[in-house]
């Protein structure tokens, strides 16, 4: 079968769409005043990221990004916001403190951006000659329980602590 006409351009366009979605989502999340819209921006950003993972030949990671970050994290945030704050938030009138915190945030993000840019531009990135795993369930299972078992167990421990903590807080809240 001969390659589809302009397939290189289509691939490039898909890459640009993914990057654009991620950046657009991030901008929405950062610039909007309503917190629910920020969460939606986060969700859009995660979709763009998932697209990039898919573009990099990791469909498992891409789908996990959607399942966890949109299906779990964003839904939880929206739920919490909805329960805590059904009405429009009161605008912060204190312009001076906004300026201070905003300036600090700009500084920190500029520093992070500079660091990442340096890493990206000056690091010697070599692609592995062969794919490390085939990305199948079996390969992921093996690496989770052998190479990365420590990280896996630590993460599950952290989640367990979070659940127990939530239970403890809910208990005291209920008796009040």
């Amino acid at each position, binding site marked *: *079968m*001969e390659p*589809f006409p302009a397939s290189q351009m*289509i691939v490039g366009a898909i890459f640009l769409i993914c990057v654009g979605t991620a950046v657009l989502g991030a901008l929405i999340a950062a610039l909007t005043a*309503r917190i*629910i*819209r920020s969460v*939606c921006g986060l*969700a859009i950003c995660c979709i763009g990221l998932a697209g990039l993972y898919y573009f990099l030949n990791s*469909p*498992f990671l891409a*789908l*996990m990004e*959607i*399942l966890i970050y*949109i*299906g*779990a994290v*964003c*839904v939880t945030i*929206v*739920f919490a916001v*909805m*329960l805590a704050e*059904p009405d429009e938030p009161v605008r912060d009138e204190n312009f001076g403190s906004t300026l201070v915190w905003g300036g600090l945030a700009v500084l920190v993000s500029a520093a992070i951006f500079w660091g990442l840019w340096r890493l990206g531009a000056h690091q010697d990135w070599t692609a592995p000659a062969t794919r490390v795993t085939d*990305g*199948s*369930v*079996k390969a992921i299972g093996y690496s989770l329980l052998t190479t990365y078992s420590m990280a896996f167990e630590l993460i599950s421990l952290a989640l367990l602590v979070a659940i127990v903590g939530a239970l403890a807080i809910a208990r005291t809240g209920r008796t009040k």
Partner: protein
Amino acid sequence: MFQSLNHLISAWWPEPLRLILFLVGIMSFVGLNAAYLVWVERKGAARFQRRPGPTEVGWAGLLQPIADAAKLMSKQLILPAGVDATLFRVAPLLMMSPVLMSLAVIPWGRNLAACNLNVGLLMIFAFGSINVMAIMLGGWSSRNKYAIISAARVVSQNVAYEIPMLLVVITMIMVTGTMNLSEIVIQQSGAFWHWNIFRVWINPLMPVTFLIFFTCMLAETNRAPFDMAEAESELVAGAYTEYSGMGFGVFFMAEYANILLGCALATVLFLGGWQSPIGNLLGDSQSIVGVLFGVFWFFVKMYFLVFSVVWIRWTFPRTQFYRLLNLSWKILIPISLVTLILSSAMIKLFHQ
């Protein structure tokens, strides 16, 4: 002779065109299916209540869905005062598009999937999780008390039922060893006792697993007796209260598309997908006739499940909310954990 329908198509058109053809096919199928499932629902409801149902428009009311669609599309889209306009408009689309994406990985027949993804099962659950977000945003942006209550219910219901659903799916992944839906169906080839639901030598609780899956599917698609999100007797129409015209219509279509997806997934995972229940009568399942025969069986099984969903809706009354949550946390999750452990033990001991 051509090896298969898929091969036939790919011999004529390259991959992107084939994909577009499949996706357009799926979209039109979903629209048509939603319209006629409304007819099935109304007719079924009528028959269960011993009345005739729609009869006037067309033979046995068969043109009723088209009249309904024309009515919905000609209605004004009302944007109530104080709603979050962007989110209000986006929510129905957000409910519809993930389903369409997920339907792309469903194998309708041998080699008849728009995208034969290796992680197809995961893809359906990843995109299925966006649904909750859609109903929640629709409910929140409506600025309506009933809609917000409905949104809160949807989240707790979906979180509660996602857990047993995923536990059951993990059991199925262990039994089949793959997340590729086509491969899962191919593993169940042969007569009906090879289907996953009857493979009791791998896990004696397999029929129970299917029941848990089906129950969770009903709850995840917000169907009666678990339609706490819509609950028209308590919450007007829940999250959809403020929607009019096609805004409501798209939500409705997405609900039926979700039911279709759930039943298709149950067919693939448990009922042998496109495999015929009496073995390969036509011998060569690679030929076009064999593939179409498979599609026929797929649709028979899927629509039987869809009919059961309608049947259940008009047979059982709506549950109470705490009962709904108790059913999940106290009954379904323990049982699905037991099936998970039991089948992993059985696989380790007898089938390695």
